[in-house]
């Protein structure tokens, strides 16, 4: 049991990355009822674009990160405007397939652009290791944790205290009702795609920094896990998604620690099935509207 605090720190760090990614998915599902699988591709672009800007174009880290976030937000806006909006009234399966197509297309383009190999990510934050008793925490873990939490809090604040945020919440709660009240769903869709994709890009950068490498396939399993967080947390429930993301991170760490690292993904997806069996609407979800 001596290593338990260490496993918790490790799990929460990864949970932060999942949460940053899942939040965009939760918002897009909440407002538009889209299962935005291609979100994982944006996350991958975050890692690959920032890598290229720093290594190939020799940009300092801060401008490189700013440009990357802008690029990811832009990609999100393009997705919304040209891949999802024309399908707004189509059955959900059609948007799902469109999204899957986007994911495969972006990944394959990335593989052509960058080659299939894993690349070492520039470590622009020099590593510090802190020992708190028997627990070892690195400054990178603290950075990921702090940034993750700060952004969640900031996002929640924006949702509750700004006009766009309130309109988004209204749209999440009842898209049709919000539209009837004169809320411009198109504008909100663009904003949440921009913000969600920016956060996904940031998660990609943080993964590069924390796990020291990036590759064009990195979005697949990570995107899937974020999606599990959205479903387990309750479709459209932002707080539930964040909670679920941290829980998945912890569960994975504890599975690897006390069961087997080889079973980590199996257990994550088994959890998905289990939660859906017991609570079909997710941990904090309400009844899902049948539109």
């Amino acid at each position: 049991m001596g290593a338990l605090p260490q496993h918790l720190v490790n799990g929460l760090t990864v949970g932060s990355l999942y949460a940053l990614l899942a939040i965009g998915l939760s918002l897009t599902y909440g407002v538009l009822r889209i299962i935005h699988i291609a979100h994982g591709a944006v996350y991958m672009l975050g890692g690959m674009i920032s890598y290229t800007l720093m290594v190939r174009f020799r940009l300092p880290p801060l401008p490189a990160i700013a440009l990357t976030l802008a690029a990811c937000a832009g990609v999100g806006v393009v997705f919304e405007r040209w891949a999802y909006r024309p399908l707004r009234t189509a059955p959900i399966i059609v948007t799902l397939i469109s999204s899957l197509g986007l994911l495969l297309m972006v990944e394959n383009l990335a593989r052509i652009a960058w080659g299939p190999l894993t690349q070492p990510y520039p470590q622009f934050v020099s590593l510090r290791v802190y020992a708190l008793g028997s627990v070892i925490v690195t400054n990178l873990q603290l950075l990921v944790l702090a940034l993750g939490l700060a952004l969640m809090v900031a996002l929640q604040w924006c949702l509750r205290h700004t006009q766009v945020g309130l309109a988004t919440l209204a749209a999440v709660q009842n898209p049709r009702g919000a539209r009837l009240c004169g809320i411009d769903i198109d504008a909100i869709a663009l904003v949440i795609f921009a913000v969600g994709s920016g956060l996904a890009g940031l998660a990609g950068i943080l993964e590069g920094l924390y796990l020291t490498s990036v590759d064009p396939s990195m979005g697949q399993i990570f995107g899937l896990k974020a999606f599990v967080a959205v479903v387990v947390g309750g479709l459209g429930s932002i707080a539930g998604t964040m909670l679920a993301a941290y829980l998945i991170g912890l569960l994975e760490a504890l599975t690897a620690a006390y069961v087997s690292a080889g079973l980590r993904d199996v257990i994550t997806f088994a959890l998905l099935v289990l939660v859906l069996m017991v609570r079909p609407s997710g941990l904090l979800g309400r009844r899902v509207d049948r539109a």
Partner: protein
Amino acid sequence: MTRNESRAFRLRSTVIGLALAVAAGGIAAAQAPDIKVGVFGPLTGPAAADGNGCLYATQLAGDQANAKGGINGRKVTIVSADDQAKPSEGIAAVQKLVSRDGAIAVVSCSYSGATRSAAPVAQQAKVPMVVAYAVHPDITRAGEYAWRIFSLGPVQGHAIAVMAREDGKAGRAAVLWAKNDYGESISTAATQRFTALGGQVVLSEPFALGDKDFTTLLTKVRAATPDVLLVVGYYNEGALLVQQARRLGLTMPVYASDGLSAPKFVELAGTAAEGVVVSAATDLTSSLFKAFAQEFEARHKYVPDSVPSHGYDAMLVVLEALRRGGASADGVLKGLGEMKEFTGVNGTIVFTPEREIRTDQSFWKIQGGRFTQYKLVPYDRVK
């Protein structure tokens, strides 16, 4: 023309066209029949560095043979197939090479999983397959068409254990292994031999291919307090594992399987790779290896490691078999049977009746960001 007539005309022209095309193909084949040798391996996906490096090396061997006039005046052409290191794709790859591309011999530039599933396909098609570096024992058990020029997984596992116990003077070992054929066969043998030599394996844990976060596993390693860390896996996971280990303050020596003996491992792990000892059945100091490495680097702008050098040797073995037995699948098989001993860039190998090889196990150490020749474990000690 009536409708029927026009249909008959169209049909007739199609048939004539087809006949001409077949005849043209026949003539072309009669004039310059290249000998087709198939190569399959992971050309895309996480293992692509190995697959492509190995393929480049076979192409180099083929081009060098062609430059010297080919095999009895006939040119050798390499046809390739991508298996993404997946067993299911391994089957499809060999089927494509044999039935569509007309390969009369196949080189496996792939891992154990894909090669193991491909071996019965080659066996059934009666096309000889020479395995460059896949280690699972079942591969050559597929039948007389499967040959291997690389040490078996268990042999390598024994050698790693001998090194860790004697060179690392370790009493307690933690073994972290990739959860697949390769990882299992090497780590099981390493564990057995390490214990047999009086050591204690205090932790043995698998990890999945594609894993990136090893902090939890390494936390367990720290709690188990081993003297030495044995890593059986590939360069992607291995690099992250070693790097994260050093970050968590684990300073014990690392002994690793040949999957980590790739330049990409050093590139990804950076300074954390320093001092890591990896098994690699290649003697970096041999003059044949140096000549090969020079030529390879001139073409592809990077220094080849164990994987390309074994791809090169596998192709040399096929070429030699072609010379001896003639340009047919049966000829290659006959040639392989006659070739009791062969000297390639990785040294001299002797084939056993089971179509395996006897050879010493070489170890490299990473020093100053480069692989350097370190020690040899003689074959007698690891069989």
